[in-house]
């Protein structure tokens, strides 16, 4: 289970951003340890962890919505900002402009390597819809992330 830690972290960061990702990651693994006996011997551990991370990320997004007071996250902000070798802020500022479903499908397919059939089971809808959401997300990212001068939020630095 431990060896999937880095992948789950990448997925959480892409879906909820660098700061909330750490709580989502922690809750995913704690929950996975508690529920491990429910996992079949032949199951795909990584897909199972991404499924849990998916739910924990949604919890984080809801919690962010509830505590939308601007001063709230200030102390945490500095922790992951600008760590060498860490998550790229530019990528997150591009990702966070995407609709949630595009962000999720992009993360689960391109960062976790899951096939669209599995992704459809996690996010709902058909595999084809998941594929389309990811393609739309990637197309937008090409414009906003690879050409940052077009990004309206370059200096935004929201959490």
């Amino acid at each position, binding site marked *: 289970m431990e060896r999937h830690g880095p992948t789950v972290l990448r997925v959480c960061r892409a879906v909820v951003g660098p700061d909330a990702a750490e709580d989502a990651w922690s809750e995913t693994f704690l929950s996975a340890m508690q529920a491990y006996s429910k996992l079949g011997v032949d199951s795909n551990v990584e897909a199972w962890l991404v499924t849990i991370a998916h739910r924990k990320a949604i919890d984080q997004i809801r919690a962010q919505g509830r505590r939308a007071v601007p001063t709230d996250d200030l102390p945490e902000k500095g922790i992951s900002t600008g760590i060498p070798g860490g998550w790229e802020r530019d*990528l997150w500022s591009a990702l966070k402009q995407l609709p949630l479903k595009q962000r999720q499908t992009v993360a689960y397919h391109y960062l976790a390597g899951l096939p669209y059939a599995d992704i459809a089971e996690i996010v709902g809808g058909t595999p084809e819809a998941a594929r389309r959401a990811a393609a739309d*997300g990637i197309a937008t990212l090409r414009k906003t992330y690879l050409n940052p001068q077009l990004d309206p939020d370059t200096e935004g630095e929201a959490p």
Partner: protein
Amino acid sequence: MMTTGPTLDGSDLFATLPEVDAVTQHRLHDRLVAVATEAGILDVAYRTVDTPLGALLLAATAKGLVRVAYAIEDHDTVLEQLSNRVSPRVLRAPARLDMAAREIEEYFAGRRTRFDLSLDFRLSSGFRRNVLTYLPEIAYGRTASYAELAAAAGNPKAVRAVGTACATNPLPVVVPCHRVVRSDGSVGQYIGGTDAKKMLLTLEAAA
């Protein structure tokens, strides 16, 4: 980063992202260990310790040290076995094994002649387990033959079974199966390899 237009494949977008963010990963891992320990769901803690015989894997349950493994046993395989035989809740948690690691380092430095650690023998059962409980009675720097140990364990004819018990000792070094040698004086087999066994016997003879 030239692109050939908006294709469906977006892997190149994430190509520059590091696979592993070690700093954050360590911090999150430590936090998970703390929370899981608090919740009582960390069943097997492990770490490695460097010795003159290479890295040893140490694993412990709440009851005590449950496994010591040489690198030639392949640590990933050993962790997989622990996950299957003890519990899948296995995490690297060095602090829980600080004392075991320190005693092993002292042993290899020639400064410790017996281990003072709680042991969990759950990976061994029946006659084999019985044999293991006799091993600490062979004093540091001494040896016993497989035949002597069979007699001590109450079954003088079970010489071969004693050999198997030693070969499958889940706690080498700490439970001194290396002190069991052949009646003809040759060192015999060892889970860490014959050279490792010779090295341990030489270390103990020198102290």
